[in-house]
């Protein structure tokens, strides 16, 4: 019988003889940490619990232990940290905590983030790995640092999440800020809008504007978030013109090209497109491998070529995930104090790789559509051909086809025994319209979100 099993058995017995509150108070986070032929050591979280178990429950505990393993004659109690095997089961939690710590450190005083420029010193060109997917953006950024405000102004970088946009543009900021005379300001678009809201409240909007206009290099990250925010766009427009007119550099980043940002004012869009646009793509295998090696520098761990290439092959879409996977493996080596074999690496990364497959059921879609358009699910199935029911019905057909891959006749069946040609017509109609009709497209996205969210509940 292992220590763990033994202690579980004891806990089971104690739980029966105590009230719930008592049991939780005295036995939470206790465990057997050591055992020899005649005695065991139980670790407890603090002195109060130690005293209590020693003085009150010792006989009972000993009794139930001896019922299972008669050779034990004595129990000792020690105040200890959370047990080791608890840590083992939860590597992911440690990593999470580490990341959390890093995140909270950003706001704390002991941090890498410069308070005046908002730049994080960790991001530099030296630690950026360039490959064919981001060559152009990299080169553009480098040349911007050399000819500030002269050649590529504004510089617009776009690409999916976790591919290094922020790293690149912050690296430019850090490089430029090395020259103490240049004023650099890095702002996240969300923060930017928050500042504007606050300035409007305090009626200091002019101060804010003049503050932005003093800089030599303005970096706006995740600019797609200003979509639809009229006042923010107005201020960006004014700031942009002012800076651009004085040949000051502007760098913008977004998760999509300017043309694809919805509800961005035309005059801003054309200005964003006026300079240089470069995209950051998904890195290919060699680049990913190089990134892993770069991240390992300073970690003082050697994982072996095989492990690295396994990680690089399996984490394809996102550098942040790639780093997360690497951290997980590194944490393993630190906790167990050994380099994991390939088999163990596979095990560690299992949860990352196999996100459970969730099947969309027709019922969920029908419910989401009905809820969204505020009609009852029965209306969708009825024979009614009122306009307010017909359109949702067509949307439902389209989504059923798109998300569940049911056949056309099956979809017709689900929606009150309609003919398969009706379904084909509906699907085509919605597909064509969604390509040109922006509101419809957003409606579809919103409904899909509802469908996916319903899984989480």
């Amino acid at each position: 019988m292992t220590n763990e099993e033994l202690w579980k058995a004891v806990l089971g017995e104690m739980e029966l003889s105590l009230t719930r509150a008592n049991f939780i108070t005295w036995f939470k986070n206790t465990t057997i940490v050591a055992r020899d032929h005649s005695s065991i050591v139980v670790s407890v979280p603090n002195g109060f619990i130690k005293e209590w178990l020693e003085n009150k429950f010792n006989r009972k505990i000993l009794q139930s232990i001896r019922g299972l393993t008669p050779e034990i004659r004595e129990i000792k109690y020690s105040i200890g940290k959370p047990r080791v095997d608890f840590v083992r089961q939860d590597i992911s939690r440690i990593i999470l905590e580490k990341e959390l710590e890093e995140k909270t450190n950003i706001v704390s005083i002991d941090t890498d983030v410069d308070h005046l420029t908002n730049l994080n010193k960790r991001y530099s060109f030296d630690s950026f790995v360039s490959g064919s997917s981001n060559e152009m953006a990299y080169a553009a950024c480098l040349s911007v640092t050399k000819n500030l405000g002269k050649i590529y102004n504004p510089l617009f970088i776009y690409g999916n999440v976790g591919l290094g946009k922020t790293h690149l543009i912050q690296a430019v900021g850090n490089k430029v800020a090395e020259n103490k005379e240049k004023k650099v300001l890095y702002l996240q678009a969300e923060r930017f809008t928050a500042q504007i809201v606050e300035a409007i409240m305090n009626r200091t909007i002019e101060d804010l504007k003049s503050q932005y206009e003093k800089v030599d290099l303005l970096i706006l990250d995740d600019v797609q978030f200003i979509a639809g925010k009229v006042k923010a766009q107005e201020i960006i427009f004014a700031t942009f013109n002012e800076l651009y007119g004085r040949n000051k550099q502007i760098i913008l980043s977004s998760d999509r090209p300017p043309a694809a940002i919805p509800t961005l004012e035309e005059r801003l869009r054309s200005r964003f497109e006026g300079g240089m646009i470069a995209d950051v793509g998904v890195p290919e295998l060699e680049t990913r491998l190089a990134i892993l090696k770069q991240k390992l520098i300073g970690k003082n761990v050697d994982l072996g070529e095989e492990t690295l290439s396994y990680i690089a092959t399996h984490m394809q879409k996102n550098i942040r995930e790639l780093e997360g996977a690497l951290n997980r493996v590194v944490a393993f080596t630190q906790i167990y104090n050994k380099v994991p074999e390939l088999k163990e690496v596979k095990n560690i990364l299992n949860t990352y790789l196999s996100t459970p497959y969730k099947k969309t059921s027709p019922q969920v879609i029908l419910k989401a559509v009905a809820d969204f358009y505020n009609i009852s699910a029965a209306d969708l199935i009825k024979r009614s051909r009122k306009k307010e029911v017909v359109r949702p019905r067509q949307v439902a057909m389209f989504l059923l086809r798109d998300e569940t891959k049911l056949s056309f006749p099956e979809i017709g069946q689900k929606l009150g025994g309609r003919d398969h040609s009706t379904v084909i017509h509906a699907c085509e109609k919605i597909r064509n319209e969604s390509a040109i009709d922006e509101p419809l497209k957003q409606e579809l996205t919103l409904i899909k979100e509802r469908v996916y969210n319903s899984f989480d509940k």
Partner: protein
Amino acid sequence: MKLIVNQKNLKRAISLVEKVVSKNTSLPILGNILFKTENGRLRLSATNLELGINTLIGVKIEEVGEIAVPARIFSDFINTVQDEKVTLVTKNNTLTINAEHYKTSILGFDPKDFPIIPKIKSEPIVSIPASILKGALVKVLDSMAISETRPELAGVLVQIKDNQCVFVSTDIFRLSEVILPIKASASASIILPRNTVAELVRMCSDLEGDVQIKYADNQVAFVAEDIELVSRVVDGTYPPYKNVIPEKFISRALIKRGELENNIRLAGLFASSISDVKIACSKDKLTITARNSDKGEIETDVPAVLKNEPFELSLNYRYILDGLKNMPGNDVIIEFTGAGSPLVMRPGDDKSFVYLIMPLRN
């Protein structure tokens, strides 16, 4: 148990221990105070399993014994009683209190269920006069973090070295450090939880003489004559706070503390929702301005003696007041260490206390 006790002494002892009792309703025994006769005296104990207090008072014992009594009812009762002498008698977990004009019975609990407050057997590390310990703790009390998201910050770091004892607290927006010169027999670094610090301050304000600190196995004890406080310590490492305290300054100003405090309080009336006031120091005065779009604005000056360049920055006025409140002496020194770096405040004639405030970004 049967004993006679002076009402004033009992009241005082109860007020010392009653704040510790837990409001945890799932374990009602924690809401009790344990009365127990011990070596000719009466011991009162209370605990919430994080923190425990024992105190001893002199009584006339006629029969030894023990009982656990709900703290709330007992304390409310004893605070209202006027008689000088009170007789406590227990029978079957009921406490009967007989004074000249009252006969009361309070339903108690079985003392066997009351948690045992651990004893720390190791030798004391250091011994500090209670008034000095209290003075140091009060100075760092305000800047402890309130949220428990980083438990190590929701407390006070006590660093004991061979010739000094350092008290530090920070909530990442401000930081206080107090250094006491003392003689210690060993070194230790302990993070005291928030609650413990507050209780310790209460305990020390009621004491004369020295408080000994003992530490072993994640538990710390503060022992004085007739009273003892035992607490868990926060598990974790304190951030390297020394890096945050700037070694050099750009400008320094000397100001009368009372005037500054008054003017900051005045300006605070007009601070916006983030409590910001702007202070600008020129050659011979410090100008404090605040503006609130709903209330109005203010500008006020305090005479100051400036060394080096003029400076200006925005700060949370509450933090400034918290710092000034604890400054001893009539003068206060403020040091500007650069835009985006903390503002340093020190008493005019005392090196042992430093208070830092992070400026607000505008």
